[in-house]
């Protein structure tokens, strides 16, 4: 998001620690709404009048990872922390878009991870029983360029 200096808010900070601010912000010159901002590590969390935001400093890696072309993605990433309870494919399998790849149990609910596109399984990076975290790679599809 491009930064516009006209958006620099008119803040009234009523309580501030080095990493925690709270107070009110003046909108449109006449409406005052509450906010809360916390800095934790490399992230800034802001709550403002019922809306919550998470900010991470811009870096080339972040910029790239947040806008990958989803359907052409080769790596199937774990969306949720949990335990792998079933793997439905093996290396070399041909899969169709929507086919079940991996089942993860998280907070007592099964999450079925399906293939985003047609393709071939190049690698399976997890085993049944593995505890996985969000962002971990589960399965890799052979890249589209190679299969052509």
């Amino acid at each position, binding site marked *: 998001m491009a930064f516009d200096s006209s958006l620099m808010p008119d803040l009234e900070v009523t309580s501030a620690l080095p990493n925690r601010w709270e107070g009110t912000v003046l909108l449109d010159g006449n409406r005052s709404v509450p906010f809360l901002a*916390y800095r934790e590590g490399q992230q800034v969390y802001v709550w403002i009048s019922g809306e919550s935001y998470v900010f991470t400093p811009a870096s080339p890696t972040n910029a790239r990872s947040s806008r990958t072309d989803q359907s052409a993605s080769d790596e199937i990433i774990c969306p949720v922390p949990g335990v792998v309870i079933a793997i439905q494919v093996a290396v070399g399998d041909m899969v169709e878009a929507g086919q079940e790849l991996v089942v993860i149990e998280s907070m007592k609910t099964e999450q079925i991870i*399906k293939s985003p596109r047609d393709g071939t399984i190049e690698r399976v990076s997890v085993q049944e029983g593995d505890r996985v975290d969000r962002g971990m790679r589960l399965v890799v599809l052979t890249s589209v360029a190679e299969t052509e």
Partner: protein
Amino acid sequence: MNVFSKVLVANRGEIAVRVVQTLQAMGIATAVVYSDPDSNAPHVALADEAFALGGSTVEETYLDRRKIVDLALRCGAEAVHPGYGFLSENPGFCKDCIEAGLVFIGPRPETIALLGDKIRSKETAVQAGVPLVPSSPVWQPGESNLDNLSSGIGFPLLVKASAGGGGRGMRVVERVQDLEQALESANREAASAFGDGRVFLERYIPTARHVEFQILADSEGNTIHLFERECSVQRRYQKVIEETPSQALNDDLRKRMASAAVAMAESAAYTNAGTVEFLVDALTGEYFFLEMNARIQVEHPITEETVKLDMVELQTRIAAGENVRLSQENIRPVGHALECRVYAEDPYANFTPSTGRLLAWRPPSGMGIRLDSGVTEGQEVTTYYDSMLAKLVSWGPDREESIGRMLGALKSFPVLGVTTNIPFLLQALVHPDFVSGKYDTGFIDKNSGLTSSLSVSQLSGVATGIADRIWQSNGNSSVSRRGAPVQTLQSPWQGLPKSTFP
């Protein structure tokens, strides 16, 4: 008065806190148990005594019957309150308590066993003259003649777990070719969640509304109802928003369903607090028995707020054998109550559970607002437990006012560090279908706008400005030159490919 001198609460989270609060108000000493990840949890801080169960997984902690009964005996408790979930509907645990000389605050073990088995509980409903949704016998793993199993039900249909609850082990299946995979998956989920993998098929009613009746029965068999709760706003078959009275019932239907609920409880020889769940077909006005839950229900506060009774107190007095003088004529609900479940989940990424440390947790307050919470600021939200953090309840003299109070409370409820469904709740409550009261269990699925990413509001620019200021104030020079100081991620999940979800 022969109420107990000490009660052990065999649960965690908001329900453990809520039960301890009532017991303390009754002058009863309280003991709780906790797992390693819960050592700093609010129920531990609140109770008079707290005992470590040792371990992190639910199997070695809140589901360990022996450890819990031993601790109850050792601390001198006379009774055990199981809350909901965990061991609350485990007839073996109920029996263990009774055999150890402890009072189990709930129904008898035979009743729990009867109602916990969906097949036997349906036979009980039939005996009580309560209508059922058409269903199949239990599926035998390996059984290939699925046409036979699904005949007389038709598609779409539901795959359900015999021992299930809370939507676990449940699937909607649209086509016969998807049935086998759904049966296998549901069987696996049920086996892992309940230790019982039996599943069966049931007619799926597309415009179904979920309406349940609260039952109270004393040890003499006097059975009354405390009116209904509507729980049709669901995601993945788990309730998100509940209200009472239901907008789906007129006085006549309400009366007939209430009588059916009482008949069901009497047919099961029910004692203590229980809930009879029904599906109401919004098109035909038919109602069908779903199940009877032999425990206190998550959404019991909305009943408490309208009938002005403390359900945990009544549960405790009934279990102690007190004559609570239940009388239907004295139950007169007042006004309207609403409950929103605050989940640690990302509503814009298929309600994926989220974890992390609750940097900020500032519950709202005000006229008609109640928060039943199981977490505190600074607490770690882990994957070990259900993702429900708290229940926000509003009461108002009418529906419009309770919705208004709820909206105000949700808007002044700062939570940072863990993604929650609060933005979703705010949008759902102002959706025309919810406002008009004409919604069914397909509300969330039918209105995909509720779960597609929020449009950028005026506030996002302001939030960006605040983030940049706190970032720079902290000894950091601006992370880059003016123009792009920080990158906005409305949700930490945004970089993940959503197309991998079903």
